[in-house]
């Protein structure tokens, strides 16, 4: 196992390098460059006098963007290996500082989201698999599909108007994650305040995830339940609960674990819209704004860091795979 993990960790290096090279190429070859964009506000759609070529070229020189691409790349790599991702073009602040501000917020959101999705979907999937095609199964499946079929931005705005506007139910806050001035309150009130702010965004981030995961769990559970060893377990006289929970779930978890690895990056990217609507300064918004303003150092840093996180989470899920299913070997065809 240890050597396997080590091997995988080593294999991450070329992958990471590949990601960095591709990102760098894509970012720098994409039309529009930061110097040009710096001359123009990305927020209004009108031009001003600033985009004369002379201004743009002067700014390019200042940022070293006039150098050939390979030189720029090597410079970047040189700094990146010491985890120095440079300063943002947009506001000259260290990139890591910006990411450290945004990351905890997104992580908070996403961890709660993943947790809620799993804690609801997996039992739902198991439950519906135990009594397939029953009334409960059908109702759950239709309700979850209804959820899944609603575009998140539409739901977000709908919920915001209903629960957070002055017109209808003025119950919930619709921006940020902490009330202004609440940071001076005792910690438990801060926790309450944050939870209160998180209700709407978390609802919007989670509701769509239930359908896929619970259906997936159901499918995988259904297959497991038909296996012979479930019959064996029943023949042993185990209670139905124990049969499902011990002999069913662990086997059904195997394909669900494969999903875990891909869930993290999806959630990192998927929150752009929700962060935008609920004015949450997280990674999604940071990334989106960086892309719009061609803020190369930030984009590169986000790509690198999220790639690393993703790689680690994929590795983790593979290792878990191995832990959960003793049959799996990662070598060529077993004899």
């Amino acid at each position, binding site marked *: 196992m240890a050597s396997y993990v080590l091997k995988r960790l080593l294999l991450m290096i070329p992958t990471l390098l590949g990601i960095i090279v591709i990102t760098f190429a894509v970012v720098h070859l994409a039309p529009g460059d930061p110097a040009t964009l710096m001359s123009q506000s990305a927020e209004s759609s009108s031009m001003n006098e600033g985009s004369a070529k002379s201004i743009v070229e002067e700014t390019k020189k200042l940022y070293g963007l006039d150098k050939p691409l390979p030189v720029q790349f090597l410079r970047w790599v040189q700094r990146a290996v010491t985890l120095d991702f440079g300063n943002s073009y947009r506001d000259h602040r260290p990139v890591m500082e910006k990411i450290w501000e945004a990351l905890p917020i997104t992580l908070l959101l996403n961890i709660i989201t993943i947790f809620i999705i799993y804690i609801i979907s997996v039992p739902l999937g198991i439950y519906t698999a135990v009594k397939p095609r029953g009334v409960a199964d059908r109702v759950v499946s239709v309700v979850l599909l209804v959820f899944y079929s609603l575009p998140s931005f539409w739901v977000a705005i709908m919920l915001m108007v209903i629960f957070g506007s002055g017109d209808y139910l003025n119950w919930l806050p619709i921006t940020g994650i902490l009330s202004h001035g609440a940071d001076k309150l005792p910690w438990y009130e801060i926790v309450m305040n944050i939870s209160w702010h998180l209700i709407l965004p978390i609802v919007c981030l989670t509701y769509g995830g239930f359908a896929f995961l619970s259906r997936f769990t159901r499918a995988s559970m259904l297959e497991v339940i038909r296996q012979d*060893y479930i019959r064996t377990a029943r023949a042993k006289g185990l209670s139905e609960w124990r049969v499902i929970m011990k002999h069913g779930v662990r086997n059904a978890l195997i394909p669900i674990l494969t999903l875990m690895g891909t869930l993290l990056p999806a959630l990192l990217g998927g929150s752009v819209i929700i962060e935008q609507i609920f004015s949450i300064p997280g990674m999604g918004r940071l990334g989106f704004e960086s892309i719009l303003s061609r803020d190369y150092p930030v984009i590169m840093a986000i790509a690198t860091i999220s790639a690393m996180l993703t790689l680690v989470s994929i590795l983790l899920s593979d290792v878990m795979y191995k832990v959960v*299913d*003793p049959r799996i070997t990662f070598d060529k065809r077993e004899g």
Partner: protein
Amino acid sequence: MTLLQVRNLTTQFFTDEGVVKAVDGATFNLDKGKTLCIVGESGCGKSVMSLSLMRLIPEPPGRIVQGEIMFNDVQGERDLLKLSNEEMRRIRGKRIGMIFQEPMTSLNPVYTIGNQIGEAIALHEGGSNKQVKERTIRMLELVGIPAPEQRMREYPHQLSGGMRQRAMIAMALSCTPDILIADEPTTALDVTIQAQILDLMRELQRELGMAIIFVTHDLGVVAEMADQIAVMYAGKFVEVGTAQQIFNDPKHPYTQGLLKSIPSFEKGTEGKRLPTIPGVVPSLSNLPMGCAFADRCEKVKDRCRGEAVSEDPCNVGRLVRCFYA
């Protein structure tokens, strides 16, 4: 002493294609310490029969629609079909053990052998972890698995087929049940292993004094194991009798056909394959009005197709479901 009295057991599957009468009015007795073999071609309802006894028919689509299974052990006589799920659960594994055809898939791949055997012991017998472990090791020793302490930490895929089936047997016998239902336990094994397993079962039967219901399609195995034989065809018992009766004096044309197709059943230990009787078993969802065997029967007469054949309830020791037997 009669341990199990099955009367008119009927199990049906309600599918989209119609009602499948997988077991239709099965009636037999099982005595303590004896072996009953249920014989028949694949798809005739043998496995459903054995699962019905355990009340392990997947429901829906299956259901035991009628009959009774009188089980008579130290706690007295009771109808298994009338027990609550909880009561039935306490009988499974404890009073009636079961082993299956495919030892690989019948063991949970993600738990160790020891875990899976110990689970049943802990459930029915209780005891500390240590006691459970000791008993598990004892069971593994009993079924002839070498180095049981080490084996019990292994996963099913690390064992050979024969070892797996031994482990299955250890699991089924871990609580010294009164009855062991063995659903084609040797079919998936190769011949030498098969013989070892059969020997093991006989040995254990002697040692532990349990009754065995042995489901198989292999008459050679039957000859070796059976005290009583029930021949099953299309969901019905067509002939029930002692091993001697069936082998020496088969009455039903189907039984006769089965026996004829073995050249020499006296030394059947090699387990030669049974050449099939012409035709196939009819679809259980669409059985003919009269005798289900009519289409394949050499002695078929008009009456066979027109009228249902009833069995003779008085003659429990020997039953033949044929007008012309």
